[in-house]
Each structure stands twice: as C-alpha cells, then as structure tokens.
C-alpha cells in the first residue's frame, strides 16, 4: 500500500535572490510582505524581547544571503495556527528575516510560553540560504530557563556536549531584553539541527 504514496517534491536551494519576493518590505522592494521580523505590536501581551544572531559558515565567514523563519507560541503558550488564528490580528507567532541588510537576523517578538507542563519555552527556526539544498530546522531555548530546559524531552534528546548550541543568551540593557543566538553551520560548535 505504501508504494502508492507520492514522492515528496525535492527541496532546492532558496538561492541568493529571494528577498524581493519573500521579504520585500524589509528589503526595500515594492510588494507587501506576508511576514516580517517585527512580529509584535506595542500592546502585544507578554515580555517583549529581541532575538538576534549571526550565521557562520564552515570557514568562519558570516553568511548574509540567508533567510531565517521562526514560529513560536504567544506568551501564554498558544500556537496561533490555522485552527486558532490570532484574535487581534497582530501577533501571529511567525516571523521572517532577510539577513542581507544587517549581516545577521533579528526579530522583535515576545517571549513564548511553554506549550504545556514539562515543555520548555522555545522558538522554532528554519534556516534557508544559498549553498543549502535543503532547509535546516533548529530550536532556540532560553538561558534563563535552565530548570525547564532540563525537563524538556526534545532538549534532553540532544547530546549534553551539544546542548549549548541551541541556547540563546539573555542580555538586558537599558530595559531592553535581547536573546543572542548565533548559528554555526559546521565545525566544533555546529548548531544542532533536527530531523523534523
């Protein structure tokens, strides 16, 4: 019976020239964006946080022709998905960033709540870039949630010596909370990517 299944369409690289279609407003093109790095409004409930980081290739060079997408719960731990769309139409939990402008990715969002007891708060991330034929999935956990992280089944499934690669470091400055999360595509500190 399984032979009746259709073959998944292969992934292909996003290439270097995606931004005018996928991140047009952020990148200065005349088309309305469907998602952006500015995910929250001033009155979005929850702790307002910034998330940013650089992407390093195997030679230690910064990758800028990349696109990062994130998907997360709201501050109460709810995914505002197809079944439960956002009430106020502002915060969707989905963000998209072109890394070309700042040579890094950045998001203005809120700190997600845990989905349920036993799950640590986290942000889901997809990495697309020229030079990658297939996108890569990772998760961002938070440095100030170590107790919750230690109870999280997905976090615990990562080899202990690699867990630091999926923890964002909290920095507070002038009442602004920023989580710093660099990606290393290869090398000793290669970021953990999941077989999602």
């Amino acid at each position, binding site marked *: *019976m399984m032979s*009746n*299944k*259709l*073959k*998944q*369409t*292969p*992934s*292909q*690289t996003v*290439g*270097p*020239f*995606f*931004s*005018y*279609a996928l991140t*047009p407003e952020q990148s*200065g*093109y005349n*088309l309305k964006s*469907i998602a952006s790095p500015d995910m929250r409004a001033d009155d979005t409930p929850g702790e307002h946080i910034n998330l940013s980081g650089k992407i390093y*290739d*195997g*030679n230690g060079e910064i*990758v800028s022709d990349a696109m990062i*997408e994130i*998907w997360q719960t709201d501050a109460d731990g709810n*995914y*505002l*998905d*197809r079944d439960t*769309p956002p009430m106020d139409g502002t915060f*969707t939990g*989905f963000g998209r960033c072109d890394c070309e402008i700042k040579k890094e990715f950045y998001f203005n969002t809120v700190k997600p709540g845990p*989905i349920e007891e036993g*799950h640590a708060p986290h942000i*889901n991330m*997809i990495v697309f870039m020229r*030079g*990658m*034929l*297939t*996108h890569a*999935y990772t*998760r961002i956990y938070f440095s100030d949630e170590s107790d919750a992280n230690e109870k999280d*089944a*997905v976090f615990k*499934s990562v*080899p202990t010596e*690699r867990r630091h690669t999926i923890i964002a470091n909290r920095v507070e400055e002038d009442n602004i909370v920023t989580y710093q999360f660099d990606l290393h*595509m*290869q090398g000793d500190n*290669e970021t*953990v*990517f*999941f*077989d*999602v």
Partner: protein
Amino acid sequence: MSDHKIDTHKIDTHKIDTHKIDKRDWDAHPPYVYPDYKSTTFRGPTKPLVPIAHTLSELTIPAFGHEQIQEFDNDLTINGRVDGEPQGERIQVSGRVLDEYGRPQIGTLVEIWQANAAGRYIHKTDQHDAPIDPNFFGGGRCVTDENGRYTFLSIKPGAYPWGNHHNAWRPNHIHFSLFGMSFASRLVTQMYFPGDPLLALDPIFNATADKIARESLVSKFSQKYSIPNIALGYEFDIVLRGPAATPMEA
C-alpha cells in the same frame, strides 16, 4: 496528471493521524553537502541530525490567507508594469499542491520568484550583465483553491551564468516557496522546464539522487493550460509532507 494519480481507496482514512506527519523522505531530498555544488561544502551541516518526536511546534503553522494577497499578485505579466508590457514568452504555470496520499492542500500559500526573459533578477545584488526589464518584477503569490490548485501567469525565465564552475549556467527555473499544513511540511523548491539541455549539467537539479523525485521537478508542457493567443501552459504538481497514514492490513 497520470503519474500523480493514486488509488485513494487503498488508504484507510480512519487510520490517518492528523497529529502525526510523515517523515522527511531523505531519498527525495538532496543532501546538505553535495560537493558538485561547491557552497554546500562549507554551508551544509555535517553532523547527524537529531531525531525529534513531533510536538505542536512541528505540527502547527499560521494560516496565510487571501487577505494578504493583492489583485494581480499571481499575474507577473501585470504586477511589475511601469510603462508597458514585459518582454518575453508569456507562460501560464498551474499545478496542484498535494500531500503524499494525493489529498489536495487547500488554502495554502504559494510564493514564486524568477529571473526575467533575459536571465536577470530584479534583486539589487544580481550582477549578471543582461538587461533588467523595467516592466517585470518577477515575484508573485497565490493561495491554493478547493482542489489544491495554484495558477500563475508569467514570462518564461531565461538561463543565467553562476560561479559554481567554468561556464556554469542555471537551467530556466522558477523558485517556489510553500507552507502546507504544518511547520514540518515547509518546502522551498524550483520548477524547471521540459527539454532543457542545461538540466543534465546542473548540480542543483542533479543533487537529488532519486530519478523519480528529481524528474518531478520538471514541469510538463500543457495544452490544457495554454491560453489561445496569449500564453503557453506548463503544469507542475507539488507534493508536501502530510498527516501520516497507517497502511491497511491485507
């Protein structure tokens, strides 16, 4: 399309678990490191992926609906016009977005982008010495209908050189970005054109080892989707990961 026809009666829909999604089929997708495509050797992850038991994080996705789509977003022959019509051969590209069991993926966002007829992108950093078409933008999107179908009107994109190896040229292609029904079904791919001699030489196309999967990236000429006196038709179906089904007992 006949090669995408499956017998849905053989799938027991009661055994489809919408809380699970089929695994990424690594036979169908290219590897992270494929040395013929040079940049992959220092950009693709090299350590084994960590398996994940799916949670809501992987099984949910926001709904991008019609409210985000503007008039002419799916007509690339119109959406970039400034003072005239874009140059080149007009094409209509249509296809269905399906899951692995042939079920239409309804109401899902399809975004596309491409070079113009001369092989030049509107993107600010494209340095290829070929003319920009002032009346062609090259980006568009639409939401699939109740049959999972999308349709775009556009201009056939030109081939262009790239720096991967001596005299390297990308085959004519249109980039596609799709969401499907979950974060796990996300897909970015490229559609190619039938009979293109550059396909055999292209490391991006050839990175998929499985012949059936690889050739599914090539659209088919379609008289049905050709518009008399206006545009040639091409059909390109896309298969995303969908909710898992358990095979019936014999």
